[in-house]
């Protein structure tokens, strides 16, 4: 109804498809990371849509970065909690 442009959801799917050969040349382990990165971008599609960027890959990459940073922050919090419980462990920043 009334849509002229492809939606951000379709643009992400097209971007993933365009990179099919790139993905093929990755190792199996890296292919899993590739798929996970796109999953992270997918979960942030609402923000990508609001950005209305004429170059959608920019916001898709930003979604991957934010997802990765969020995961790192989660791990850091867990490490901190472990360090707190086990003070004898060598600290990450030491």
């Amino acid at each position, binding site marked *: *109804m*009334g*849509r*002229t*442009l492809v*939606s*951000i*959801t379709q643009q992400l799917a097209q971007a993933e498809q365009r990179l099919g050969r790139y993905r093929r040349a990755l190792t199996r382990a890296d292919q899993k*990371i590739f*798929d*996970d*990165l*796109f*999953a*992270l971008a*997918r*979960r942030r*599609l*609402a923000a990508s*849509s*609001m950005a*209305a*960027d*004429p170059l959608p890959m920019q916001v898709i990459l930003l979604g991957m970065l934010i*997802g*990765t940073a*969020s*995961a*790192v*922050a*989660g*791990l850091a*919090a*867990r490490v901190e909690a472990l360090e707190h419980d086990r003070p004898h462990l060598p600290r990450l920043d030491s």
Partner: protein
Amino acid sequence: MTARTFRAWILDLYPAPEGMVLWLKAGVEAGGRALRVVDDLPMSFFIAGESARLRAVWRGISGWGRGLSLGKARRFEIHRGREIDLLAVTAPGPLPYRAAVRDALAAWPDLAFYDADLDPAMVYCVERGVFPLAECDFVLEGTRLRSVSTGQTRWDLAADPPPFRMLTLRLTGELRDPSRGYRAPLEIAAPGLATRVCDWADPRALVAAVRDSLAEYDPDVLLTAWGDSFLLDELLRRARECGAELPLNRDTRRGVLRKPERSYFSYGRIVHRAASVWLFGRLHIDRQNAFLADEYGLDGLVELARTTLQPLQQVARTSSGTGISAMQTAEAYRRGWLVPFRKREPEDFKSALDLVRGDKGGLIFQPEPGLYEHVLELDFASMYPSLMVKYNLSAETVGRTCPKCKSSAPGGAEGSPSFPHSPSSDDRPPSSPFPFSQHKLGEGERGVEGSPAIIPEIGYPVCQCRQGIVPLTLEPLLEKRLALKRAARAQPEGPEREVLRRRQVALKWLLVTCFGYLGYKNARFGRIEAHESTTACGRDTLLRAKEIAEERGYRFLHALTDALWIHKQGSTDADHRALVEEIGRETGIRIDIEGVYRWLAFPPSRQYAANPVANRYFGAFEDGTVKMRGIEARRHDTIRWVREAQGEMLEILARAENAAQYRARLAEVFALAREKLAELRRGEVAPRRLAILHRISHPPEEYKANLPVALAARELAAHGVHLSPGESVEFVLTRGGGARPYDLWRETDRVDAARYRELFLRMLESLAVPAGCDRAAIVAELDGIRQYPLPGMARVPVGGLLPAAA
């Protein structure tokens, strides 16, 4: 001739050579009889163009005779935002009106026509202040109607429907489409009438039984199953063959009206509308062909006929979009505004960046797949129509400003398109507050004259000085639906409450469709910029709700256009009420608590387990009721065996109080699954429960691959069954990769258990994967290789690169 008064309902109305024919239905106390009367209905259309051209048209039409009268007129043209000069052509009745429009269009196709395709029933209702199925007081002189009046309005909550006399015609046995070859004796039934069952082998007796039942019972409504596509035509054919009369109409001057079948694209899929058979003086409703009637029944159809001013037979066969369009046309006609014919409003010019900003739909926050506890679901009540009313979003108000608001409009020009209005990064900051926020209206507030609202993201100004045609149409509709919902809630469980529920559901579909029609290029009161503005306001409203919820400590899980799913450990009912009050106050749109889920599952994508899927979820509310969307038990294309099994499994899971109990109860689900699969292996599942319903997208002969649907469609075609794109085929998967149409199933056919097991497994995945159980584990569990509980099942949610920060 002396005049007499008559109190009755307007059962049906349609044009005829003598004017408008009305069928009046008296109350039971007056014998319940039906009466045919005739009224006059002059109808006008208008032509716009240069003065010299209009003078030439005047001279041309003057020569036609036919009782046409001509005159000058000046009327409001909504797309131009002002009154324009016109040539008015008035015909003495609806049929001469149609003929004059047709000839004028052929003679001057380049001129702009208005009011040129009005429905005579609508015009009659507006002119006389009545509506279909209204109870009215009539003054009659013979069969001529002298006056009509009613104390009712179409917005009344308490309005009894006419006391319909209803006769049912259907084939006995299970409900199956006879146009696919199914035959069973014909059953003729009506309250207080001995049910007749007639065999097709004796057509003379069959036709006589139908004729006698019609004569004896004189029904107002003929309710059939496949009456449109098969039954009535077949009965008339048999009557002709044996030289018998079969007057299906009450109006003996008319034959039945047949409208051909058609296939068309709608929302990216092909839809088939069966042929239809219309009666005169008697209403034919085919329950298999009535649009959405399964959801709201005859009560909903009556509500729609009254609200949209369309006769009952018409409303039963047209979409909600047609209903909303009819209401807008009626509203414009009532106000004396011009109704455009073949709209000539191209989309305004926009830059590529404008298009990227504006050409978007509702906001969708994808959920992280997994199983969650204590989830609150909030739904905005009729979000889009409410926004259209609140911000006056209409074809003629968005991007157009009037003299009063000229001074304050940022890009508007009086009465003309103000696009492109592309706020640059200098005048529009990338973050809140948007200009829209400054104009944001609280609950019950309205826009201020002279102060146009500015749409967020896209910056279109919206004139607030004159209410637009779309909000004018929607406002009473929203109020009536809300009042019906409140009245239903106030009633105890029972038939009266059910009637109110059906009526409000029928209106809900009008409200759902009104947004789509705002952007539909052929809708006469549609304009893409108004459509874009509605979604932009919707996105802003949803984001504001998200911000408020997060400020109050809720974790945001999922949102879909006008609904959001949030979680806060230990939140209480009082917290939830405070939250919805604040969101309602801040956004100006009412938001309701749909419920609190004990547990809620978001299944992952089937292609990749880390990928989320929007609008696919299921969960149990605190009272144990289950809500599901997008999963097998809810989908129309799921086979009955799988759907019923998933329903039973969800009943088991609904007893779980939390996610841990959910996982524990999966053991019962797997036990049930093993039983069901054993029944399948033993051949104990009836083919009926395994039949797959599939809509065909091409004519059967155009399928190139040997897909099961193609095999079934071709076999039906070989048996003389004509199928059009958009029609559905039911088939059963057979051994060796084959498929047999269900209607041609033979005792010797064997079901392909392996392929049905696969369908069953996919259904089971929807339930088990969100709890951390992958496909390999499910298969192992079903095969009895491993014992429950399975290792790794406690990991919730699944998927993802790494665990996310809390």
